[in-house]
């Protein structure tokens, strides 16, 4: 049912002339959760969000937003959502405070007290004309307007673009509070740490198609962890275990990656070898992401071999 889903997108398609921007994209956001939306530039994140906002019309597939149709029910739905663009464009001759007031009044939930509180947290002067704001300050106008609203669903499209690290910290708090208030969030971002910290689920897209989605734990489960051990015995025996890869042994030290399914066997094999130290590192979101694009974090300069490496990575996963 869609009732417990804030957003439900199935096989979404969108063409711009001969360019296929979305090619069967899927995306789900459970109510009250924060969903991360990852993909490189041009992969279709903003197009998806604009379709959900009723700014663009889908060419195929199905999209449901808070139980309504994002195109037909746009105005009604927009009372319940707030949006921050990656590049907030304001009226140059109006102040930031006026812009926030206008956006809040359009939705009908403008609350000066709430706005003031967020203005203070984001350290934004609302009396300056928008044309004198820096990029970061324009983003803050969008963020204050969105967080101060009572919207049930927030669309944040690379919202921390241009914010300083202090303000990114404030942003992280605000998203966590929004979630605590029961609001749903779609966060499109390039900052893995931000997504890892905030998001309950992650959707990774590539060329307009969803290539991976689920909770972070689920995604990690599909990937190998890296294990570093110091042993009394000879680690070479580990190489014969099915599911152990990339073994590098040097005296008593060994580093290897292991499929999560093979973990019990590996642990059983390790105990007789007298482990003195063991560190297991789950794959980072960055590694998960980069694997889909055929770029391994350790060898970013191999980017030119991307297609070959990508198919190799896919084969390895199977």
């Amino acid at each position, binding site marked *: 049912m869609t009732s417990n889903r804030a957003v439900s997108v199935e096989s979404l398609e969108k063409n711009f002339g001969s360019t296929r921007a979305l090619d069967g994209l899927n995306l789900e956001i459970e109510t009250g959760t924060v969903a991360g939306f990852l993909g490189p530039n041009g992969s279709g994140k903003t197009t998806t969000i604009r379709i959900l906002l009723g700014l663009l019309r889908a060419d195929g597939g199905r999209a449901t937003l808070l139980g309504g149709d994002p195109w037909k029910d746009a105005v009604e739905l927009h009372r319940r959502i707030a949006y921050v663009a990656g*590049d907030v464009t304001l009226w140059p001759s109006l102040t930031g405070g006026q812009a926030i007031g206008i956006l809040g009044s359009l939705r009908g939930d403008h609350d000066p007290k709430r706005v003031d509180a967020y203005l203070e947290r984001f350290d934004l002067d609302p*009396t300056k004309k928008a044309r004198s704001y820096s990029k970061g300050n324009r983003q803050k106008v969008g963020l204050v307007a969105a967080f101060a609203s009572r919207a049930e669903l927030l669309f944040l499209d690379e919202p921390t673009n241009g914010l300083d690290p202090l303000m990114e910290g404030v942003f992280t708090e605000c998203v966590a509070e929004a979630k605590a208030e029961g609001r749903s969030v779609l966060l499109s971002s390039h900052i893995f740490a931000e997504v890892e910290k905030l998001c309950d689920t992650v959707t990774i897209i590539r060329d307009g198609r969803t290539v991976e989605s689920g909770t972070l734990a689920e995604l990690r489960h599909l990937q190998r962890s890296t294990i570093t051990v110091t042993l009394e015995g000879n680690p070479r025996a580990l190489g014969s275990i099915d599911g152990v890869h990339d073994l590098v042994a040097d005296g008593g030290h060994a580093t290897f990656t292991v499929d999560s399914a093979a973990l019990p066997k590996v642990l059983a094999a390790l105990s007789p070898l007298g482990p003195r130290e063991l560190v297991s590192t789950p794959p980072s979101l960055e590694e998960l992401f980069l694997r889909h694009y055929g770029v391994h974090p350790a060898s970013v300069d191999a980017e030119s071999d991307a297609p070959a490496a990508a198919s190799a990575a896919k084969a390895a996963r199977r």
Partner: protein
Amino acid sequence: MTSTSTAPTRVASSGDISSGALRNAAAGFGIMIGFIVRRNWLRMLIWLIVLAGMIVLVIDSQRELFPTQADRDAYAQVANTPAIAALTGLPYAAGTLGGILNIKIWMTMAIALSFAVIFLVTRNGRAEEEAGRTELLRAGVLGQHAYSLANWSVFSGFAVLVGLASAGAALSQGLPAAGAFLMGASFTGTALVFLGVAAIAGQLTRTSGGANGLASTVLGVSYLVRAVADVQADGDKANWLTWLSPIGWAQQSRSYGENDWWPLLLCVGAAVILCWIALTLERGRDLGAGLIAERVGPREASAALRTQVGLALRLQRGSIIGWTLGIVAFALFFGGVATAMADLLSGDNPIAQAFIGDSKNVLDGLLGFFLMANALLVAAFVLHSTDSIRAAESAGRTEMQWSSAISRVRWAGARMIVPAVSSLVLLAISGAAIGATFGAAVGKPDQAGRFTMASLAYWPSALLVIGVVVLSAALIPRAAAAVTWALYGVAVVLSMFGDLFSLPDWVSKNTPFTAIPRLDMDFTIVPLLVITVLAVGAGGVGLWVLRERDMTSA
């Protein structure tokens, strides 16, 4: 370039410009000249062709209008009226073709060229700085003043070229060489002064709109000072007040008359001094900043601003005030000069026919023509105002607004109500102003009502402009501005000069402005209804398309 040889030891200190420091500050000047010319050559060429072409057309028409010396002498007897003096300056050599040319076109040429230079200097100066592109250039090996110096040099050169082309156009029509060259030089001289004014305005304000506004205001004041001076002149001898206005200086060179070159030295001197001041100002300020400080604004949106119509009104406040003042000033002039001009136009010459149509009453015909010209001005405002729909989308401001709880139809509707209501008010005010000043001139103070009604008859035409602009913004958002202004240009030419092109009647009498019954004609409601239906149709289809299509990405 030069900077590499001297830069390590020499840092241009603020305060003095020694020659070495200036060379540093101008590093990259030559490259910038090429850069600015490459970005503006077409625009400059069009201005040049239009302005020089106007000279040829006017000489030709005046030769036809006053074919013999006796005609010109007769004209000279009546040329010097206060209205002519105020509008176009003192008619000092009205018995010669060159003198008549100056009466008809000198002021238009000088002001058009000055506006061209102001807009071009701002467009390439303050507007570039506002957009942040100057920062990109200045971060390279480019002296502090190189860009501004190149900007002013290119458009000074443009002013000189237009002057030469105007002289050439006059020579090609057989006017005396001394007068032709001096006339061209006086256009250039006027434009150079306002180039200096624009250079300073670009230093003072932070926005290109502000710079254009400031420089245009100085131009307007110069025009009015000269008008006041010329109305108080003794015969065709200038009043001392004339010397307070740069336009007065250039006009006192009296080409085709006494042919004095020395007043133009004032123009050139003023231009050099103004540019020097602008350079000094530029040295003392930060890139991107203006010297007139940016004021802080309210921290809260007022209740009015939270309505769509209120927001649209607030965003267009400056533009509405400016257009209203301009249109009312024009209307006052129109009404004031009507009687003077009617005396000059006899009903049987072809040019007069073109302007006043088949009217039996020359004066009413002329006033009717003024009311239509006034309506065309109002239509330009309406076009500019409605174009905000396209402009907001192309600037990317619709992204957040259309994501809010407002339908696109309501959003666009508010931006259509503003020009619809303001055009109604503007037509009423300006019609009343023409009627009142005309009535005052002929001692019939009860004229305002009749003129207001005749002016309001053009309201459907203004609504049609709104409809067409919305339709274009919806269908062809990227090309809409160019297409709608081109259509407007065609409408103006057909309405004002349609009869000169010997077009068939069904064309020249059925354009959106000529179809409206004029002051002197019997009123019929049919054309107003037809145009209203077209306006509603175009606007309705436009709104429907706007609702159904994708938003255009910024």
